[in-house]
């Protein structure tokens, strides 16, 4: 009959609010028990090991249960949970998800301390810090690994810090919506806890540049080693932390073998040299542009510029379409169109006026519309106002029906803030035979699970663009992937051993880019010194193979855990862990897969969708709580720039989302907004300590959305401006911009044009022929290092130039002649 459970919980809130007014969210009434977050990491070559430390303190008179939802990179192998309470350290175990929760719930009801870490999504975690006694402090440490990638000598590390409010599609069932509500944190304009950072990075070659588009950083660099922290000490958790490294050498390929619990695990990185000639077979390219509210501000501006640049990289013979999506989807043309100068001009004009004005983020219907002959129009009257051309009967010869297109290259530009990721990724996977996705994650807090997942499932590739980060190299790199052939029929021989490889599905191999793959070797069968790991594949018409040099590292937990992380992902996304040789996933039902997933997760102590970390802190009887703990959900900051609330790159924007209208928080007004750069002295090898401040002063005046920010345009290198002048057929017009880069006046160049030897049919193109040759010469001679960026445009220009049969005076090769004319000024 007796009931020890407290019966006066309703009084808690009032009690609590009276105390400790210092630590509250700006717009919340409840005290916030999270005091601060510290992230410290160690990057050794490609493997980064991070520890996130969250410090909690109960400042109330009642026991509390603090619940905090926070993001981690989607690839993170979360491999440790520790709690420090005073001098005591408790270490967590990975257990089956429901069992872990029951242990937690039972400990809570018994008045013990309890800690539970759940992976709600691969990039979305929730920690429950239970029965924290009044005045008690707890330090939670979450350890995780990520694997970096060295592409074109650049390494990009990104750590998310907050979970943007996400769009929940209307058609989700009630129980799924309820779960989403359970894990959605309360939001606040400002939160009382901050983030500090320390990273110790060491690369195989000298560090040339360290920069961060997201934060002012302080770095101390010596040769290939650097220590990095925020120059402000503590920052707000309202945007990703992005760190970019440029090193002097590409990563040397090879196979690292590490032993763990008596078994060898291998991490292979290979960079197959492929023929990089651009592939001129026509492509059907559809741009899917997220115009939902969350894209307002910097994101939509970057998306507009990206699409325009992509459009100019297309070639004659290609087919293209642009679909904007939000609550509805709006195709720009009634049907995909041929790539002609007229259609390019029309598209560019429309792209420049695109706004993030389509409301929600219903990405799935937009994807599904791709294969539909006549996509259903969700709201005809709404669309008719926007683009009457869609409803005009069309007999255009340059329009194509969906059935004409056998394979789609889809370029998706989004911030990925949706709650139905799994459904969207399933779509990408089941349509990979007819559609490949090149995805751009745009914004300060992109959901990398959706963006990387779309690319991974469809065998495309993802790039991320933080506000203020240079767009052009990323866009052109994606286009070069889209254009150039990938290695076909890829297989790996693991020294003749039957291994469990992960990922099972070997990722696509693009020219010049590293392929990373792992394997677990059978018990008692280590890789010998003489073993050879060989990758074989077909490039063009030829079969090639590449060998990975084996390096034994001895004991290595990191490689084993990285294998486990990838194996878990395979099992979560429906692939079994395959044994090579059979080329089949293990037979078994989804139950068997689930058991396998849980087994790997527990053995390697890596969290998964089916497992959680749990800790029970035993207490002396006098420390057992006697009343129900009060729930304290930690408020999280809304991503900066979300819904155009603030423009990160261009200062403070005028746009405030309707739901969040009001003053911009002070701490946001003080934000700097450009790329913060730290250049180390790699040449002298001297240690440098550099604190960089914001380069551009904060623009206090509002920047109306839709007008491009001129100050950022002026930083664009000349060759990118030149690429923007490329015409649909590949030719260039004689322009002031082109002339100024040659060092000659337009009039002088016009005189040169009159001396060219040209077919009478091309007489009127005389200046265009010269301009095209000049542009090609400038690119090859003065921007040789940027070849991956201009290769597609160059190939197009060359093809056009050859078709004109033009030559220099005396029948000399036109390009040679132009180079000769330019060289004295070079």
């Amino acid at each position, binding site marked *: *009959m*007796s*009931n*020890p*459970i407290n*019966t*006066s*919980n*309703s009084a808690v809130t009032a009690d609590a609010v009276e105390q400790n007014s210092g630590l509250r969210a700006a717009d919340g009434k409840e005290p916030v028990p999270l005091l601060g977050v510290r992230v410290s990491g160690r990057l050794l070559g490609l493997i980064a090991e991070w520890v996130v430390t969250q410090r909690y303190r109960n400042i109330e008179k009642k026991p509390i*249960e603090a619940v905090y939802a926070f993001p981690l990179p989607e690839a993170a192998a979360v491999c440790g949970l520790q709690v420090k309470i005073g001098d005591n350290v408790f270490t967590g175990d990975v257990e089956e998800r*429901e069992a872990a*929760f*029951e242990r937690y*719930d*039972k400990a809570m*009801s*018994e*008045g013990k301390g309890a800690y539970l870490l*759940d992976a709600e999504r691969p990039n979305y975690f929730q920690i429950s810090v239970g029965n924290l006694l009044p005045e008690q402090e707890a330090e939670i440490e979450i350890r995780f690994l990520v694997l970096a990638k060295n592409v074109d000598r650049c390494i990009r590390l990104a750590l998310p810090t907050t979970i943007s409010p996400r769009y929940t599609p209307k058609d989700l069932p*009630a*129980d799924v*919506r*309820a*779960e989403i*509500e*359970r894990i959605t944190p309360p939001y606040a304009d400002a939160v009382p806890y901050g983030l500090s950072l320390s990273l110790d990075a060491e690369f195989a070659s000298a560090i040339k540049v360290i920069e961060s588009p997201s934060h002012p950083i302080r770095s101390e660099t010596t040769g290939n080693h650097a220590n990095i922290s925020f120059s402000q000490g503590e920052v707000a958790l309202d945007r990703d932390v992005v760190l970019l490294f440029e090193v002097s050498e590409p990563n040397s390929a090879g196979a690292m073998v590490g032993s763990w619990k008596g078994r060898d695990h291998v991490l292979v990185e290979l960079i197959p040299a492929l023929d990089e000639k651009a592939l001129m077979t026509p492509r059907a390219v559809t741009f899917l542009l997220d115009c939902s509210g969350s894209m307002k501000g910097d994101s939509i501006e970057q998306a507009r510029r990206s699409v325009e640049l992509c459009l100019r990289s297309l070639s004659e013979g290609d087919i293209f379409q642009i679909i904007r999506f939000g609550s509805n989807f709006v195709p720009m043309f009634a049907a995909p169109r041929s790539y002609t100068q007229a259609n390019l001009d029309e598209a560019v004009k429309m792209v420049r006026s695109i706004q993030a004005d389509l409301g929600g983020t219903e990405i799935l219907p937009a994807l599904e519309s791709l294969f539909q002959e006549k996509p259903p129009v969700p709201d005809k009257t709404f669309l008719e106002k926007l683009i009457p051309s869609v409803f005009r009967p069309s007999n255009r010869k340059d329009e194509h029906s969906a059935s004409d297109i056998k394979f789609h290259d889809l370029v998706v530009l989004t911030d990925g803030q949706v709650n139905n990721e799994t459904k969207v990724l399933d779509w990408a996977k089941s349509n990979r035979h007819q559609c490949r996705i090149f995805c751009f994650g745009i914004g300060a807090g992109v959901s990398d699970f959706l963006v990387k997942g779309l690319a991974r499932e469809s065998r495309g590739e993802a790039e991320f663009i933080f506000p203020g980060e240079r767009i052009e190299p990323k866009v052109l790199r994606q286009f070069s992937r889209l254009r150039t052939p990938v290695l076909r029929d890829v297989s790996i021989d693991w020294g003749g051993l039957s291994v469990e490889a992960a990922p099972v599905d070997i990722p696509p191999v693009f020219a010049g880019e590293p392929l990373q793959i792992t394997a677990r070797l059978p018990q008692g069968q280590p890789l010998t010194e003489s073993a050879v790991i060989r990758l074989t594949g077909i490039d063009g018409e030829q079969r090639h193979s590449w060998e990975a040099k084996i390096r034994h590292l001895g004991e290595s937990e990191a490689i084993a855990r990285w294998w486990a992380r990838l194996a878990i992902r395979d099992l979560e996304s429906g692939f079994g862990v395959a044994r090579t040789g059979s080329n089949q996933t293990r037979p078994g039902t989804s139950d068997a897969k689930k058991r396998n997933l849980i087994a790997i997760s527990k053995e390697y102590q890596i969290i998964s969708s089916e497992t959680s970390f749990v800790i029970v802190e035993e207490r002396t009887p006098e420390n057992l709580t006697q009343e*129900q703990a009060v*729930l304290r959900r930690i408020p999280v900051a809304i991503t900066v720039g979300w819904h155009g609330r603030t423009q990160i790159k261009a200062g403070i924007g005028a746009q405030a989302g309707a739901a969040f209208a009001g003053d911009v928080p002070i701490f946001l007004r003080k934000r700097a907004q450009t790329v913060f750069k730290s250049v180390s002295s790699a040449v002298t090898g001297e240690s440098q300590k550099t604190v960089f401040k914001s380069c551009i002063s904060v623009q206090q005046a509002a920047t109306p959305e839709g007008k491009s920010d001129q100050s950022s345009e002026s930083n664009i290198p000349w060759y990118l401006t030149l690429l923007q002048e490329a015409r649909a057929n590949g030719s260039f017009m004689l322009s002031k911009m082109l002339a100024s880069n040659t060092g000659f006046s337009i009039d002088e160049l016009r005189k040169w044009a009159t001396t060219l030897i040209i077919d009478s049919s091309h007489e009127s193109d005389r200046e265009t022929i010269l301009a095209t040759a000049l542009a090609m010469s400038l690119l090859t001679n003065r921007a040789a290092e940027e070849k991956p960026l201009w290769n597609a445009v160059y190939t197009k220009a060359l093809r056009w130039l050859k078709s004109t049969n033009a030559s220099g005076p005396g029948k000399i090769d036109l390009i040679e002649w132009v180079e000769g004319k330019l060289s004295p000024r070079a």
Partner: protein
Amino acid sequence: MSDSPRYGIGELADLAGISRRAVRFYVQRGLLPPPAGAGRGHYYITEHLDRLRQIKVLQEAGLSLEAIISRFATPIHARPIQSCDENLVTPTLATQTPSRPTSSLWLRLQIADGCELHLRSGTFRLGSPQTQRLQHAIRQLLGLDPRFPENKSQEESSDE
């Protein structure tokens, strides 16, 4: 009454078709009374299950958790269920889920010819903006004039 079923959190969650974590969350948010019994022996009873089913109905009708919380206006975590042996029902719950065998009052609304909407009285109120919105939406789905005609409704009592 001593043979009334007692549920562990897992069993309760499975019966209600929600996650164990949601059960705990609803208790913490005051949507569900805390479990009965103390510490190691805590358990849930039929009233918890009934309440979870009510929550589910409201969620399926499109209500958010916040809206459901405000619907169950009085914070019920202040009044935990004592145990199976006691009078089980708190005053708020009493009007909706009297002790077994339960009977409940339902509103029957004729939306159109051949289409009726049944709503539990107490959870829904005749003529409330929410009920009207629901009727309105169904009429729209049926392609009818969304303006609702004179309510043709009746209350009927039925065994649950």
